[in-house]
């Protein structure tokens, strides 16, 4: 047997760089996108638009609140839009990281096929999440562009950074959900996630009304939710009311959650596939 002369710090033989692991799966995800983008148009673009019209324009027409009480928004529409887009980012991220992850493990066994190649679990997770983020980023970008003519943005650069914050929301939720899905044996767990996770977060994390309305205790509970940090960041940037220390905290929480979630996703899938 040959003597091992490689330095101790070297990566295992044949391990791909993160970039190469990603590019080798590019054709696969491009094919997936070509097949599924039509369905995505409805859920990603049409549904949120219905929300904006119903909640923002029609329902919002009855709300004539003081901008002070709407976190500085000139109208309810301007208040609700940044929150809606952030919540929408969460919904897409969670949807794309639940059934598709379980499918790739249990039903289609795509991950098993991919893992029989030089790709490692880490590479599969990266490409998968990369695709989810692309979906989130494109949906939020279109959403924000469509809203621009409604006069709800207060600066030209704010909405751009708000879009980045929405992608961060997507990243935090996609990684955490991936980790959850990778450990889940049956799809019944997704019902619980949507009913007890996504729905309450959407309703009570400050997307539709200021969390000060919740009363002091629940307000603090709301502040602890990941979505609130995204809503807060997205709204401050759209309304040009940025409190920078708070914005840094919001962004920091989302970044930390993304990193922790990514670790959780990789370890979950490793345990599941490499037994």
């Amino acid at each position, binding site marked *: *047997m*040959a003597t091992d002369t490689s330095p101790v710090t070297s990566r*295992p*033989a*044949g*391990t*791909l760089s993160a970039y*190469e692991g990603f590019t*080798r*799966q*590019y*054709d*696969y995800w491009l*094919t*997936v996108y070509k*097949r599924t983008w039509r369905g995505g148009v409805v859920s990603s673009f049409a549904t949120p638009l219905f929300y904006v019209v119903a909640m923002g324009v029609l329902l919002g027409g009855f709300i004539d609140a003081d901008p002070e009480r709407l976190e500085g928004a000139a109208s309810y529409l301007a208040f609700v839009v940044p929150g809606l887009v952030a919540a929408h980012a969460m919904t897409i991220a969670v949807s794309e990281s639940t059934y598709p992850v379980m499918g790739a493990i249990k039903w*289609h*066994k*795509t991950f*098993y*096929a*991919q*893992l*029989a*190649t*030089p*790709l*490692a679990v880490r590479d599969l997770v990266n490409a998968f999440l990369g695709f989810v983020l692309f979906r989130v980023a494109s949906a939020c970008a279109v959403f924000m562009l469509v809203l621009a003519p409604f006069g709800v943005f207060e600066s030209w650069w704010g909405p751009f950074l708000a879009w980045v914050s929405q992608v961060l929301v997507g990243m935090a939720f996609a990684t955490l959900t991936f980790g959850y899905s990778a450990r889940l044996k049956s799809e019944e767990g997704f019902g619980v996630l949507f009913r007890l996770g996504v729905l309450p977060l959407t309703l009570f994390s400050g997307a539709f009304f200021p969390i000060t309305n919740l009363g002091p205790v629940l307000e603090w509970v709301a502040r602890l939710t990941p979505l609130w940090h995204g809503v807060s960041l997205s709204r401050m940037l759209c309304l040009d009311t940025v409190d920078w220390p708070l914005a840094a905290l919001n962004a920091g929480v989302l970044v930390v959650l993304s990193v922790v979630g990514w670790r959780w996703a990789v370890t979950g899938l490793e345990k599941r*596939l*490499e*037994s």
Partner: protein
Amino acid sequence: MISARGLRKSFGDFEAVKGIDVEVRKGEAFGFLGPNGAGKSSTMRMIASVSPVTSGELRIFGMDPATDGPAIRGRLGVCPQEDTLDNELNVFDNLYIYGRYFGIDRATCRDRATELLEFAQITEKAKSKVEDLSGGMKRRLTIARSLINNPDLLLLDEPTTGLDPQARHVLWDQLFRLKQAGVTLVITTHYMDEAEQLCDRLVVMDKGLIAAEGSPRELIDAHSTREVAELRFGVGEHEGLAGKVEDLGERVEVLPDRLLVYSDHGEEVVTAVLDRGLQPIATLVRRSTLEDVFLRLTGRSLAD
């Protein structure tokens, strides 16, 4: 190509592989033979470098799967027991996209995919959905996919399970051709005829251990007689009649539906049985097979 020493695999308290030694040489067709649950698939997954070794030593191409998994997998072809084809992609894309995972450039991938469709005799299905293929075609596509990276070693886990006889023969023919082309094959199967047809050398596995090792011929010579006389009597009579024929051969096995008398001269056994006034409903004289070897070594038939 493969070298295993004291290889073990446990899942919690359950020990699927209990310490096996295996050596597979370049260019040979090597078989793991045994009933379901013998530890064949667990062994294959360790060789495929997707399942960590619990203890013992395993080297593939001289490399350790624990540290060099990606490099090993880059030179392997894997045809898993369950099809893992992508039903959402068409037949051609299943090959093309898989090739990309190995870092093969797009033009080469397209050429290889076209060649392999030809090899698998499914060229006319290139644009079809995988769902529309027959079971045999899906298996051939899976094997074609496992060849996209020109592997040095091809792992086939139960390659013909669930296929009709005709489809099995087409597949065997293709595996023969690969063997002739110098590809090292490692096959698990619980079909004795498949092992006899395809394998130069094999191990018989039972309950996580290796019960015997050798070429099919060597195993039959070592553990069975040249011929077997099968005697079928009425329902429930076999146990009682075994004593009356046991002196006619080297040994007798009692199966629920027949007696097997092992002898180098099967026809003489049948004649002697009839001379003793016994009246079997049916008799058959055949050559010994690996099935008999397995029965001898484990006391159970493979179907158990």
